[in-house]
């Protein structure tokens, strides 16, 4: 079996384990390439049946319009259930402080909305598109990752995970985060997108965009949320996105890649990791991701 077939088979196996082991699973759908791949894998795992889970999106309000449009079309086309909950509502309900500063991120705030939607529907398993190559705390997380009632990950209490036997047994109130593409790298995802001819939101490909350069030399797009400073120089740059997070904390990369083939060629050449190139939120400290996961993050 080719390596992509093996990765695909592993992911489908995991998705079917979720269907077999849980009462009320959900697939966390962000509109990004990783969760789009998950949906594609779910089609392969369950068609001609319906998905045994709804797609759930935590909408930060800072999402790219192209990603939202893609999300809505996809759910309609597949005739699958889509649940959307808004961080803006959580902020109002819980009287939380919205993101502040030049790039007001809601990345931390979305954990509240996520935990709320898990409670609302009593989801016992949430499937996510995180990959172990993304970040070194993720490299340590199990494929079936048990979270307590508060959604917290405890790296010291992880269950041993042997062979391909997944223990999803939990108590009332707990839930399991499941990562079927844990063993895929960014390049694997693109090779798969190519092989399967998966359609993506347009912002993954090159386009002209008004951007400003941050102090770390990253291109941030100009939008209604970013607080421009007088010294900021707005420039029109040919860019694309390597990840589709929030407009306020995801940087674009300069690129001329029009096609999936172009992107694969570009990635083979690049010297910078996906998160390094695009995320502003992990730079804060060495253990930023570990800490956020302990707090209930994806």
């Amino acid at each position, binding site marked *: *079996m*080719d*390596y*992509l*077939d*093996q*990765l*695909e*088979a592993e992911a*489908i*196996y995991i998705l*079917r*384990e979720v*269907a*077999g082991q849980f009462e009320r699973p959900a697939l966390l759908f962000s509109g990004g390439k990783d969760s789009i791949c998950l949906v594609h894998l779910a089609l*392969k*795992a*369950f*068609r*001609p*049946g*319906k998905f*045994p889970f709804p797609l759930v999106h935590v909408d930060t309000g800072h999402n790219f319009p192209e990603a939202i449009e893609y999300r809505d079309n996809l759910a309609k086309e597949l005739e699958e259930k889509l649940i959307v909950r808004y961080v803006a509502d959580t902020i109002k309900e819980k009287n939380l402080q919205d993101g502040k500063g030049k790039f007001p991120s809601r990345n931390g705030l979305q954990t509240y909305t996520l935990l709320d939607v898990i409670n609302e529907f009593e989801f016992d398993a949430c499937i996510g598109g995180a990959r*172990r*190559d993304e*970040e*070194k*705390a*993720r*490299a*340590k997380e199990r494929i079936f990752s*048990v979270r307590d009632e508060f959604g917290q990950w405890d*790296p*010291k209490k*992880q*269950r*041993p*995970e*042997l*062979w*391909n*036997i997944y*223990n999803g*047994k*939990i*108590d009332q109130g707990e839930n399991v985060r499941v990562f079927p593409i*844990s*063993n895929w*790298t960014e*390049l*694997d995802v693109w090779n798969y997108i190519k092989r399967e001819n998966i359609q993506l939101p347009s912002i993954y490909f090159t386009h002209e965009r008004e951007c400003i350069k941050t102090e770390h030399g990253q291109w941030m797009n100009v939008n209604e949320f970013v607080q421009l400073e007088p010294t900021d120089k707005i420039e029109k740059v040919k860019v694309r996105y390597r990840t589709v997070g929030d407009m306020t904390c995801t940087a674009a990369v300069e690129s001329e890649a029009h096609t999936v083939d172009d992107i694969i060629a570009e990635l083979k050449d*690049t*010297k*910078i*990791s996906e998160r*390094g*190139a695009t995320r502003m939120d992990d730079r804060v400290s*060495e*253990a930023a991701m*570990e800490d956020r996961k302990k707090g209930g993050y994806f």
Partner: protein
Amino acid sequence: MELLRFFTAGNVDDGKSTLIGRLLYDSKSISTDILETLTKQSKSTGVDANIDLALLTDGLRAEREQGITIDVAYKYFTTDKRKFIIADTPGHVQYTRNMFTGASNTDLAIVLVDARHGITEQTRRHSIISNIVGIPHVLVCINKMDLVNYDEEVYNKIKEDYTHFAESLNLKKVSFIPTSALTGDNVVKHSDNLPWYQGPSLFEFLETVEIEQDFKTQESRFQVQYVIRPQTEQLHDYRGYAGSILSGSFKKGDKIAVHPVDLTTTIEKIEKFGQEVEEAHAGEPVIIHVSDNIDISRGTTFVPVNDSLQTEKTFEAIVCWMDNKSFQPGQKLLLQQNSFRSKAVIKEIDNKINIYNFRSEPSDGSLHLNDFCKVTIKTAETLSFDEYTNNRKTGSFILINENTNNTVAAGVIA
């Protein structure tokens, strides 16, 4: 392109993490931003003037603070020939279970030996665990050659000692490579410091080592994960059994036995991703339809009729106890084998396996963290299985504590 999964074992400080770091670094699989952070961290822990390559895999705060590997870290790299999945496992004896975990679904073990110390108790322990996990191939990296003046004699002596020790186990294949993870000798590039060594570098070895394809040739096994019943108008009577072919292959028209109900039927149709296929092989996820309406649900096993599959409620296995709390007689357990689950108890602890010499010792009836014991297990439902040495998929299981839901043991049917 092929996929090779391997894990690293060895004593603490033998250089496992450094070796993996070196492999990634010299094969240019590390991004510049990650290198930058590493350089910063290396300074802040003050370990070395060079970059501390071990920091690449030690991803948890506690690990960085203590300078040791506690949990398995997975790393990935790709060459023109292969994709590699590496499990970097901890060496400390108190993390034996994590090592067992990391080893469980790999095809190759890399056992590191410090050239200065030769084979130690830990080397034996790790090799014995690899043996129990049924790793098809063990590569012994005799590391830190720089600290023994790259002496061929030292290498040969260790090789001889290990070969002698390996004879007492049933390791299928053993290879040796002299390396220095710190300086990079023989990791990716051949080294002028080791002119007497003619074999491949570690990197070349990994790119060319044969991957055992046991599952292709074994007896045919399939287990149901999930029943697909769309119950729509057009697909009113559709009933498909979704699962992966565990080993061997199945064809349309095959007469099969269905366990544990022990009935026979015929494969009417095999679907893969919406297409009907004539035949499906080990590893492939499929949906199987059968011609008779019999009781089939999650955990049901399909095999060819008149097959050697064993079906029992009582059987013997080697278990590795993985829970901090020791085994309590009468403890309520669940046994899970792939998607099959049943209530189970450990009826008897027959004997204990000394993991330093692989000898059986009389058991005192206890089962503590990291113990390996031969036990007798009794399940409530009939288990359909093969011996682990014949089939890693149907011969392995985990035990779950019904009360805490924790995975408390891993077992191989012996």
